């Protein structure tokens, strides 16, 4: 049976979601998106640059068949995030939104109060809400209670590449909520993505780790493999950690004994 997962009415096979920001060019982005095997790609909603034509051409570079996940990045209040989500829906004609309400410019940590508030409004309006949140189990529960289709705690600050800073909180979140838990932000390299999946994340969302790698297309492939490997390791069930050795070769039948 295929190992699929769902967000609201959408079902996916790939457990890697990728962003479209920070690429040096659209062609590189397109090749990286394909190499990642992702089925969901995030996009931002911004004022159209009216001084140049073709400023709206991002969509032409996103491979057909990929599901767009509009975000509310850089919104600092619930109201801004709600307005941005509505515009994103109008652009995309879908129901998914990656909800961000940012509380601090330097760390880009979420304003969880505004986040929960915005989530309640958008859920009522029929959005499938995926909130980017802190690694805080209490907030995660509030977001689930607000009707969010998933929760997306950070591994580390957006774009930091610091990896999974608090694996224990992520595990507690996974124990606490029934909706899918996606790790969003903080991944620096393939092992971070594998770790997130081994911890039990349903999927991982990343942008900078791929877009700003020296070879984005190769890194996209590495992330695809790491997410798949982490998922398989989780399903396979790792051995318990032991302080002392446990021999892999028989200790009997040795020559000269």
């Amino acid at each position: 049976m295929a190992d699929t997962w769902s967000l609201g009415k959408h079902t996916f096979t790939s457990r890697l979601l990728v962003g479209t920001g920070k690429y040096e060019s659209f062609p590189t982005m397109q090749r990286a998106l394909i190499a990642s095997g992702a089925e969901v790609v995030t996009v931002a909603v911004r004022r159209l640059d009216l001084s140049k034509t073709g400023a709206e051409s991002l969509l032409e570079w996103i491979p057909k068949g990929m599901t767009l996940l509009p975000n509310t990045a850089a919104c600092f209040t619930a109201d801004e995030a709600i307005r941005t989500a509505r515009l994103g829906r109008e652009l995309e004609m879908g129901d998914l939104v990656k909800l961000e309400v940012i509380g601090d410019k330097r760390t880009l940590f979420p304003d969880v109060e505004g986040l929960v508030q915005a989530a309640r409004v958008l859920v009522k309006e029929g959005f499938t809400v995926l909130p980017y949140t802190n690694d805080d189990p209490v907030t995660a529960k509030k977001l689930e209670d607000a009707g969010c289709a998933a929760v997306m705690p950070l591994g580390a600050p957006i774009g930091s590449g610091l990896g999974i800073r608090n694996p224990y909180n992520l595990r507690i979140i996974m124990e606490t909520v029934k909706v899918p838990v996606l790790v969003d932000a903080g991944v620096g390299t393939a092992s971070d993505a594998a770790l997130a999946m081994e911890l039990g994340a349903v999927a991982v969302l990343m942008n900078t780790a791929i877009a700003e790698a020296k070879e984005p297309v190769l890194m996209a492939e590495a992330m695809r493999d790491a997410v798949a490997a982490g998922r398989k390791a989780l399903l396979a069930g790792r051995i318990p950690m032991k302080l002392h050795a446990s021999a892999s070769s028989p200790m009997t039948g040795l020559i000269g004994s």
Partner: protein
Amino acid sequence: MQVKLNGEIREVPEGTTVAALLAQLGVKAQRVAVEVNEAVVTKDRYDAHALRGGDAVEIVAFVGGG
């Protein structure tokens, strides 16, 4: 009359509709979303929705993001 378009004051003919504004700007209606006074104007209302002096109009599109 004057409207505020993406944060900048702009002169447009009296009674300009959203559809006419987009055409005047050379913007493909399918690739943008429009908000007037903080409320989305859906594509099916572009022809009917006439702007008024002082309206705040936002025209947005998707850009790369994470």
